[in-house]
């Protein structure tokens, strides 16, 4: 895979490249792409290239390559005698450059058509998966056991790290805390309530406190999708009458 970080794209003075510049000269002068003597565009082309600010080296070479071919075509038309000397090299003929220009013009037209579709935003969507739940095929029971071992190892390690237990939470205290939080902000996530690395006791107390608040109609608990964030929300006002 030849994909990797690349330097940012450099836009060259409003042109996508040497062929783009050449095409613009043809269009500016309202010339016919099929009959224009390309050598006649050499001066205008060079003028534009000179006017360009500093270009990256590989861009310059692409522009100069086309420039040199235009100058050669112009020279040939002025001095027909030099034509025979190089005409064997078919790549240097006017027709080849013209074909490239026409091909490029076509590409530009197609790109514009695609761009129109893109901007119109008329795209299709397919159905996203997740509605049909089937057990995964070819599951490896050993993998499950290995995963469980990892989980066990994790809990063992965190037990070792937490050497100062002694912390005690009461459900009443946690309930009051959450009630105060929810009074301040209309919505809070379960993850936020648990904090970064909750101890088992803290998680259980928080969870029971939430159940209690839910039972007393102080809060609403919502979850938009399976395994999504659980949101704890202050119960809307109209329900307050029911709590009495």
């Amino acid at each position, binding site marked *: *895979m*030849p*994909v*990797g970080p*690349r*330097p*940012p*794209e450099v*836009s060259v003075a409003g042109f*996508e*490249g*040497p*062929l*783009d510049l050449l095409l613009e000269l043809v*269009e500016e002068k309202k010339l*016919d*792409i*099929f009959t224009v003597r390309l050598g006649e565009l050499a001066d205008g082309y060079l003028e534009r290239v000179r006017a360009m600010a500093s270009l990256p080296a*590989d*861009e310059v070479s*692409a522009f100069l390559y*086309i420039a040199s071919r235009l100058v050669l075509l112009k020279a040939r038309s002025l001095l027909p005698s030099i034509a025979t000397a190089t005409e064997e090299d*078919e*790549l240097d003929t006017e027709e*080849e450059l013209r*074909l*490239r220009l*026409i*091909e*490029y*013009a*076509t*590409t*530009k*037209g*197609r*790109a*514009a*058509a*695609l*761009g129109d*579709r*893109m901007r119109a*935003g*008329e*795209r*299709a*969507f*397919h*159905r*996203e*998966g997740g*509605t*049909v739940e089937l057990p995964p095929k070819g599951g490896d029971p050993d993998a499950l056991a290995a995963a469980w071992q990892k989980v066990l190892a994790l809990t063992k390690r965190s037990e070792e790290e937490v050497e100062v237990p002694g912390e005690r939470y009461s459900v009443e205290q946690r309930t009051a805390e959450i009630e105060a939080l929810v009074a301040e902000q209309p919505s809070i996530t379960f993850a936020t309530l648990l904090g970064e690395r909750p101890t088992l006791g803290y998680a259980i107390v928080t969870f029971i406190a939430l159940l209690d608040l839910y039972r007393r109609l102080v809060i609403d608990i919502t979850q938009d999708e399976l395994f999504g964030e659980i949101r704890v929300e202050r119960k809307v006002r109209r329900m307050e009458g029911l709590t009495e």
Partner: protein
Amino acid sequence: MTRSITAAAVEAVLFVAEKPVSRGELAKTVGANPKAVSEALAELEEWYRGTGLRLQHEGDDWQIVTAPEMAPFVATYLGADRLRLSAAALETLAVVAYRQPVTRAEVESIRGVNCDQTIYTLMSRRLIEELGRREAPGSPFEYGTTWEFLECFGLSSLDALPTVLSPEGVRSDDGVVVPDK
């Protein structure tokens, strides 16, 4: 007008499919021969005209997708972002879409500039992909468009690529062959 049993069966299978289903697999699944499946697909295509759904296919792979005309509503519901591409990326995409399979050198020859960056952008957006290596000196990668490309541009298939008139009014969609360097 009611759908044939085969068309109804094909529709039901495509409805639950989460990815494109080949005609062969459809035939096997619904117990019909490939020709009957083709007819069923044509029937469905006709049936969906003017509805919120349509059939999309690349080669022999088929899927039910939403109609591009309904994109604004679906995008709102899904919270989907608009696709944005630079003019340079669009040009490279146009070359790949209309002339695939195509190598990087061929794209660069047509555009007259280096296309590393735009090819990288299009690949990372999953609009084009490597199809494999060409049996040629240096065995360069060949690129083609993806299923996502059809979807993002609302094309029911590659046959639906817009036909473009060249500035002179000559239809040049068959492509002008650029001699190899």
